[in-house]
């Protein structure tokens, strides 16, 4: 069993995944999307020195670049916590085969390296080094500089893996590292130490004394060996994947009073808080609430109400589109059950709608504090809120009846396109830009209040006819029920 066989199996598992080949168009769109990102980042690497020269004349681009390297790697490490998963489970079928442990270790290490986050840095470092460092410091220094950068990427990669594996044993490892980074950043903020200065000193020094690149290289090797040794002694499935915590059973007793519908809403809440992927989506919706601080002041100043409306729509309605695009798919692993329990479809749809209303109202209430920034925020957010619950919620439920793809709840959400079809992309575009366009036109040609009142009325009309719409949605759902069930059964 060689490494190439392992990798070939991984290749098959990627392309033969049930959902992978289904929509070629989506694959191509995603491919183009990734390609564009790569080109942009490579372009950034080349253009960086010119950008620096133009925006900050008098500063040496190399010094400026070097002063941010430490910062970059620390942020990179945090990003890796989020984005990179341990590729442990993929070895499960091999553990009982006649394969040497060392080749399995080898596979785990190599397999983990295949990740966007390991490829991206090179698109910045290589062009930058060739364009800027090569003319100034010569070939040897450039090569050594690149070796150090590669070593540090490598080090970050295995450090992340090591910390993650350690946190499987003891989750305090993770918090300790995050806390350490936070303290360093704090010290930097209060000018006790300076990331920028030390970073510049170290890496400019490196350019003058290229042979010191053996230090980062040594650090990377040490991390690799640490990680490897840890893996070697823990090559058991139960030790590689995180142990599930004991249940802290929360009951939403308030919801008990609302009968079957309350029961179903509390089921959705449990789904959200007990599974990785929906939980991270909801946390994201919470973080988005902070967008107001970043964007509102700017657009308030320029009086750009359309942009204010766009952000109000995102802030109050993100949960609906985020959670709603997989509305039924979240339950795909037990949808056979959901469809044979004693649940009336109208109630089922109604419960989903009420969940949207509840969470959206919560977001709206919190976001109302932005009213202190300027009174215009209040009517704009009311319009966005009413539109979200009165129109978007129904559109989202309708679109969800076309989502036939199984979803794994335990996979992390970032960069995870499982279960997303072309329709969902279209839907997110429509939901965010449709009303914004209407608002823009009305605001521009008639007036601010007309725009506000029109958008709000659309929402109110939707709410007023909610019973009719829900009944219609239940019919639509029943038409496609078997197709949804069939899709969800294909894992």
């Amino acid at each position: 069993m060689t490494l190439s066989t392992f990798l070939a199996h991984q290749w098959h598992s990627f392309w033969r995944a049930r959902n992978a080949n289904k929509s070629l168009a989506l694959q191509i769109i995603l491919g183009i999307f990734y390609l564009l990102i790569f080109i942009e980042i490579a372009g950034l690497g080349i253009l960086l020195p010119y950008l620096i020269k133009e925006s900050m004349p008098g500063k040496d681009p190399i010094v400026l670049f070097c002063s941010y390297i430490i910062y970059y790697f620390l942020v990179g490490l945090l990003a890796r916590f989020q984005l990179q998963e341990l590729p442990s489970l993929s070895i499960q079928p091999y553990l009982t085969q006649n394969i040497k442990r060392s080749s399995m270790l080898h596979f785990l290490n190599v397999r983990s390296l295949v990740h966007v986050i390991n490829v991206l840095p090179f698109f910045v470092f290589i062009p930058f080094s060739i364009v800027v460092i090569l003319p100034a410091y010569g070939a040897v220094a450039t090569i050594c500089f690149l070796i150090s950068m590669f070593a540090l990427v490598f080090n970050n990669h295995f450090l992340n893996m090591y910390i993650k594996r350690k946190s499987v044993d003891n989750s305090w490892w993770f918090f300790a590292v995050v806390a350490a980074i936070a303290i360093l950043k704090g010290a930097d903020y209060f000018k006790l130490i300076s990331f920028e200065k030390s970073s510049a000193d170290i890496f400019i020094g490196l350019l003058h004394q290229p042979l010191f690149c053996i230090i980062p290289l040594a650090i990377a090797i040490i991390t690799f060996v640490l990680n490897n040794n840890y893996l070697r002694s823990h090559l058991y499935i139960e030790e590689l994947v995180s142990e599930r915590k004991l249940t802290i059973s929360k009951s939403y007793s308030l919801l008990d009073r609302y009968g079957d519908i309350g029961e179903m809403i509390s089921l959705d809440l449990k789904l959200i808080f007990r599974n990785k992927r929906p939980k991270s989506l909801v946390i994201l919706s919470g973080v988005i609430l902070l967008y107001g601080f970043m964007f509102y002041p700017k657009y308030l100043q320029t009086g750009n109400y359309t942009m204010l409306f766009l952000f109000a729509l995102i802030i109050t309605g993100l949960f609906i589109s985020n959670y709603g695009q997989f509305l039924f798919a979240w339950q795909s692993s037990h949808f056979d059950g959901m469809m044979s329990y004693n649940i009336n479809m109208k109630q089922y749809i109604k419960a989903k709608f009420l969940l949207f209303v509840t969470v959206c109202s919560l977001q709206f209430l919190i976001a109302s504090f932005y009213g202190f920034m300027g009174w215009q925020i209040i009517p704009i957010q009311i319009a966005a809120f009413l539109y979200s619950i009165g129109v978007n919620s129904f559109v989202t439920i309708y679109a969800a009846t076309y989502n036939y793809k199984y979803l794994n709840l335990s996979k992390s959400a970032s960069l995870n396109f499982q279960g997303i079809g072309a329709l969902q992309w279209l839907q997110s575009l429509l939901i965010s830009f449709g009303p914004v366009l209407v608002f823009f036109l009305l605001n521009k040609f008639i007036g601010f209040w007309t725009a506000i009142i029109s958008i709000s009325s659309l929402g109110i009309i939707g709410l007023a006819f909610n019973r009719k719409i829900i009944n219609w949605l239940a019919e639509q759902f029943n038409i496609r029920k078997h197709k949804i069930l069939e899709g969800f059964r294909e894992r």
Partner: protein
Amino acid sequence: MISIKNLQKSYKGVKAVDIDTLEIHAGEVIGLVGNNGAGKTTFFRLLLDLIRASGGEIFSKGNLVTASEDWKSYTAAYIDEGFLIDYLTPEEYFYFVGKLNQLSKADVDDFLQTYQAFFDDAILKKGKYIRDFSKGNQFKIGIIAALLTNPELLILDEPFANLDPTTQLRLVDMIKQMAADKRMCIIVSSHDINHVSEVSSRILLMEKGKIIKDIAGGEAAYDEMVEYFKVK
């Protein structure tokens, strides 16, 4: 209870289920047997309206299962893990299913009390989510949740396959008792011809989607099945 007319389900031209007429009555325990691919699970899914039939009709108490949702109030089923909400604890799951059938928490607790032996102390108050239980215990949870609603029609797909011997024997007794006491209509599929001939009052033998034998349960049925399944 159940009445079937010209029921057909085909996948890519191959008929997975093809039943001309079939009547199932309250109080009957139907044992559905047949080798893999005979169409047992497909038949169950059709009964529960989880897949769309290619042709024909299923009436449950006179109503088309595809048209009315009434059957849900008196039907319970456990086919596979797809019926379990795996991020709930067993208790939460039982309360959930109970609530949908107008049972209070106290009702559910009483019910669970009577089935303590069945659980063998391995399921309740363990502080674990269903997804963290072993396959066999998940199966127990699913079966108990199906019984909990006190259904008139109970559908179990290969209930003996994933249970330990003690629980298998216990389940045999439970099925017989429920059919007799409550006139429950129970449909079980199984590969265990021993158990199935013991619990069933009527045995349906499926082959390539068709019901080729419709015989009374008991010793004679066992012999007939041995004859059929014997390696030729």
